[in-house]
């Protein structure tokens, strides 16, 4: 499943790159892309584990930039 999420308060391009690297390494993630300019995160991952992968991605995102949050509606 491939889904796109909005990232709130992503101000640092360097952080965007670090987040992308970190999320790519999550088990079950096929591909991830952080678009700094559009403030969007695209994750392609295992259908069954998508929710838990998303939670882990949120954690890693905060670890890099504590102000930034993935908007999960």
């Amino acid at each position: 499943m491939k889904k796109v999420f909005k990232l709130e308060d992503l101000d640092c391009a360097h952080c965007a790159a670090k987040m992308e690297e970190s999320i790519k390494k999550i088990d079950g993630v096929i591909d991830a892309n952080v678009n700094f300019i559009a403030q969007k995160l695209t994750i392609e991952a295992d259908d069954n584990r998508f929710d838990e992968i998303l939670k882990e991605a949120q954690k890693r995102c905060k670890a890099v930039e504590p102000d930034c949050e993935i908007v999960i509606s």
Partner: protein
Amino acid sequence: MTRKQKRVLLRIIIAAIFLVIALILEKSGVVQIISSVFYLMSYFVIGYDIIVKAVWGIRHRRFIDENFLMSVASIGAVFLGEFGESVAVMLFYQIGELFQSCAVAKSRKSIASLMDIRPETARLIKGNDVLVLSPDEVQVGDIIEIKPGEKIPLDGIVIEGSSEINTSAMTGESKPVEVKDNDEVMAGCVNMTSVIRIRVTKPFNKSSVARILELVESSSSNKSKSERFITKFARYYTPVVVIAALALAIIPQFFITAGRMEWVRRALTFLVVSCPCALVISVPLSFFGGIGSASLKGILVKGSNFLEVLSKCDTVVFDKTGTLTEGNFSVSGVYPEKLSERVLVAVCAAAEQHSNHPVAKSLLKASGEDYKRFKVSSLKEVAGKGVIALVEKWEVAVGNNSLMEQIGVVYSVTGNSETVIHVAIDGDYAGYITVSDQVKPAARTAVEALKESEADNLVMLTGDKDEVAQKVAEELGIAKVYSQLLPEEKVEIIEKIIKEAQGTVVFAGDGINDAPVLTRADVGIAMGTLGSEAAIEAADVVLTDDDPTKIVTAIGIAKKTCDIAAQNIAFAISVKILFLLLGAFGATGMAGAVFADVGVAIIAILNSMRTLRYKG
């Protein structure tokens, strides 16, 4: 400014005031404790969140992180007794970060407003009622009404009314386009003169507007080589500088006795200069600006990497039909044996009226209403050759050489560089009509402009016959022509051209049948109007209005963008190195270094916004 940003600004102002008070108190010789208190207050106001983030970073095992470095540098300064420096470091850093976040937000917003093509509402006609809805609630087949001055919310076909449309938001063309019954209109354009009603043909999320917006947004995901270089650079730069800082703090202690604290001080300055922010922000911003400004001109670029490849272009390969020529035939000459020209054309048009062949369409166009006067019966289409029909009481055969040979009529042989349609009436040769594809005037302008630029190696490819190809090439001034090509042969030729070229190779074609060549070229530019899915899929750049002069514009924007990105990279790196050296030799303090850093970031970000303005 967002609320968060305003809070930071407030903290900066308060901290700055405290700092100034502290400096004045210190200089005026007052008891040290009082000035120290002000320094401390200033420090906390401005720096508390950086220290918190630094600790947070350590918990997540990220030592080499800006917050950590800034904290170490400023705390180190406190230990050295340099309170002023310590506060200044934090202050300037926060100013820099605030500026960065404002500049990025502003850049994003200005691109968004330039791209403000998103329509807000649609007026749905249901029977006698008019409902105002959001565009994504309207279905295909619904009728919507657009008043003068309003933005067209969805793609559709005009069913009532006629008006003039401003397409500049979508194509960059300011000349108004007339539309009437059965004409297609694009979402995002503005209706100017009168009310029109259209039947919606595509849902909102598939409309031209939605697709352009999506293309521009996702284009930033295709990173250019420069952007990837910066990311890699930043990853190595910071650790290297930190190690150098450590080395600087420790090693010279054994040799030069400038005082151990002095070396620690210089090492701390190093730490402060180790932040690569300016670089990392400004490069993506410049490319985004470039892509945004290209979209405004109707040039949709699918990724920053394509801007880079475009900027190095020295060869442009054109497909003929649809790219350099209009793509629809029109009658260029009528040569009857006995009948008048008008009657000959009318008779042919009558015979061809039900055919879908482009030749038939051109005959109908040339004949206007005339052909309707003739009664036509027993129509027979002979594949690849023409049409035989009974017009009034005559047996009319309209077609090419083989059709004439088939019915045994002797025809005029012309070594013509145009498509020739022969006509026979009741077995007698009645004359011929020549039909040709018109060269786009814009093509001439484009070729001239390209010849003056660095992309002056021009080639034309076509499946059409030699004489026609030569004529078009001569008219335009293109020296290298390959004609009578099958699609696979086109790919072979492009590969040969790529191998021989020094710069990159651009191929411009109309997409529908040129997909493999578009894919193979370094940059494939599709002359597709937004209706053609195949064009958008295969191409790297899509021109929304089929105008070949946009190729020149695209190359221009690409060059400017890459130049600005290169300027930023060179500027930022050299200033950094300069300050590293100055810091190592003690010629600058920490505050100076951070100040320079902030200055560089500001300049780099402002410079990258220049890509938004391109006049060409």
